[in-house]
C-alpha cells in the first residue's frame, strides 16, 4: 500500500510550555479507513486542526503527502483534503445546494448530481436541501457537511466526531459510507464511539498524552482491545 501522508515528530501547543501533541508520528496509506480514538483532551481535534493548517503553534520534522513535502497551509495540499468539523456553524446563509456549489467551486470540481442525490437519499436529507443551513438542526447541519465531504471524493477526508448528532439511520449510512470511501481515497475520523471504529476501520490509532500510544489493525480491532487500552491510560472511561 502506497503512503499517502507521513508525519514525524509532530508537536502542537496552545501554550509553548504545555504541548498537546508531543512528538507524534503518523503514517496513512492510500485508500484506507483510519479511526482515531482517545479520551477527552487527548489531542484528536488538535491533530485534525493541524492537518488542516488551522493550528498556529506546531512543528514537524517530516511532512510528506504522496511522497512530496507538504505545507499544511498550501493551496495544493488543501485541494487534496476536506474536513468535517465536530462543531460547525459556517455558511449559515447558504442552502445545502448552494453550499455544495460553492465548495465544489473552491476545489475546481463539478458536482456529480446523481451521486449527491444518492448521498442525500441515504441520509434522508431530501426535504432540507433548500433550507438555509443556519435554520437546520444540529444533526441535519452535520449531514449537509458530511454529504459534501463524501461527494468531493478527495484523496484525504478528515471527519472530527462525525457521529455526533446523527440519528440511528444516518449513523448506519455513515458507517457504510466511511467503509466504502476506500474506493476514492483515505478517510481518517475521530470518535468516542467504539462501535464506529470497530465496524469501519482498517487501522485504529489510540491517542494518549499527545502521541499515538497504540495501533490496531486487522483482527486486533476489537472493542475489548481498545477498551482495555483506554482503561489502562486513565481510570475514567468515556468510551
Amino acid at each position, binding site marked *: 500500500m502506497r503512503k499517502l501522508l507521513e508525519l514525524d515528530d509532530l508537536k502542537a501547543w496552545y501554550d509553548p510550555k504545555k504541548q498537546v501533541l508531543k512528538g507524534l508520528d503518523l503514517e496513512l496509506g492510500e485508500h484506507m479507513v483510519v479511526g482515531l480514538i482517545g479520551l477527552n483532551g487527548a489531542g484528536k481535534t488538535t491533530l485534525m486542526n493541524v492537518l488542516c493548517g488551522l493550528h498556529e503553534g506546531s512543528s514537524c520534522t517530516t511532512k510528506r503527502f504522496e511522497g512530496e513535502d507538504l505545507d499544511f497551509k498550501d493551496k495544493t495540499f488543501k485541494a487534496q483534503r476536506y474536513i468535517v468539523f465536530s462543531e460547525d456553524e459556517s455558511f449559515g446563509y447558504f442552502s445545502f445546494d448552494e453550499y455544495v456549489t460553492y465548495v465544489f467551486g473552491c476545489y475546481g470540481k463539478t458536482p456529480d448530481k446523481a451521486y449527491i442525490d444518492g448521498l442525500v437519499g441515504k441520509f434522508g436529507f431530501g426535504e432540507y436541501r433548500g*433550507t438555509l443551513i443556519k435554520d437546520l438542526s444540529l444533526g441535519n447541519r452535520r449531514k449537509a457537511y458530511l454529504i459534501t465531504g463524501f461527494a468531493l471524493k478527495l484523496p484525504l477526508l478528515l471527519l472530527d466526531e462525525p457521529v455526533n448528532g446523527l440519528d440511528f439511520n444516518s449513523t448506519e449510512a455513515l458507517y457504510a459510507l466511511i467503509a466504502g470511501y476506500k474506493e476514492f481515497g483515505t478517510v481518517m475520523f475521530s470518535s468516542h464511539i467504539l462501535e464506529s471504529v470497530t465496524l469501519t476501520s482498517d487501522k485504529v490509532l489510540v491517542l494518549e498524552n499527545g502521541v499515538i500510544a497504540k495501533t490496531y489493525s486487522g483482527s486486533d480491532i476489537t472493542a475489548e482491545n481498545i477498551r482495555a487500552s483506554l482503561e489502562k491510560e486513565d481510570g475514567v472511561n468515556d468510551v
Partner: protein
Amino acid sequence: MFKMLSRKLLGENCGSALKNVFISVFIAYGLYSIGKQIPLSEKVLVLTAVVFSGTLVIQTLGSADNAKLLRGLFAMPCDERRTLAGYTAVTGLYVLTSKVSLLAALFFSFTKMTTYRWVLFLLAFLYAVFGGVAAFGHFRKRPYISVLYVAAGVAAAFLLPDGKAAVIALAAADAVCAGTLFFLKMENFRIDPTAGRIRKVRTTGRPAMLIPRYLGRYLLEHKAYIFSTLFIVGFAVFFALNAERMGLDIACGMGLAAVSINSPVSTMVSANRGLDRKLDALPAKTEKFFIPFGVTLFCFYLVCFGLFLAAFHIAGGKGGIRYIAIAPVFAAEGAFLTSFLENKYPIKTWKTEADITHNPRKYILPIALMIEAALVGFI
C-alpha cells in the same frame, strides 16, 4: 447573577466594557480638539438619547447571542426578581459602554454639555433602559403596552419642561418605568430566534451570485445592521452639513469617510468564527470568497455613498459635486481594504460583540479615506 450575566456581555471583570469606555473617551477628546460646536436643544438631546438607547436595548434583548445565554439561565432555579434586576443592569451597562458612550462622546465634542445636560442625558438613558426592557417584556403578550412605553418616551422628550422641572419629570418617569418591571417575569424575555423558522430558498445555478446572495441574506437577517447603516449615513450628512457651514471645505469628503465606519458589514467574517475557520480550511479562499465579497462590498459602499451625497445635496450641501466622481474610487478602496483585512487580518480575539465593534482595525478605512478627502479638498 449579575456576575454570571456580565461575563458574557461586558467581558471578564467588565474588561471589554472598560476598554470600550476608554475608546469612547479617546474619540471624545479627539473630536473635541476640532473645536466645532453645534447648538442643540435639550429636547433634541433627550429625544436622541431615548430613541438611540432604547433601540439598542431592544436590539440587544432580541439578539441571537442573548437567546443562547438565556437558554441556560431558564434551566436554572433562579430568583425571578434578582435575575430580572441583574439582567436589566447588565443590558443597560452593555448598551451604555458599547454604543451610548459613543453618542455621549459626540455630544461632548460637538455641543455644549453642562452638568444639567449630562444629568438629562443620563436620565433619558435610564428611561430608555427601563422602558426598553419593559416594552420588550410585554411585546409578545401585550404589544399595546409596549407601544405605550415607546410613545411615552417620545412624548417625554417633546413635552420636556425647562430647568429643574425637566430633571424632576424625567426622574419620576424613570422611577415609574423601573417600578413597572415588577410586573414582568424572566419568562417574558425567553426568545428563540430560529424556532419554527425553517426558510426554504430558491437556488439558482449561478455560482458568481452566491456571495452577493449570502451577504444580502446576512443583512436582511440582521435588519438592525441596515438601520445602523442608515443611521451612520444620517449622522454623516448632519456632521458634513454643519462642518461645511463652519467653513470646512472638505466637509463632504469627511462625511463620505464617516459613512465607511460600518462595522457589521466590514467584520462579517470576523464575527463568525466558524466561517473564518472554514474559509481557512478550504482552498482558493481569496479567489472564491474574498474577491466576490469585495465586489459585493463595492456595490454596498457605492449605494451608501450615493445615499449620502443625495441627502447631502437635498439638505443644502454645496461642496459635493467633485465627490460624485470620487465616490466610486472611495467605494473601490473601501471594498478592497475591508476584504483584504478580513482575509489576512480577521479579528480573532474577541469575546463580546462590542469587542468587534470597537476594534481599532475598523478605524483604518475611515482614517485612510479621511486623509484622502483632505488631500482632494486641497486640489
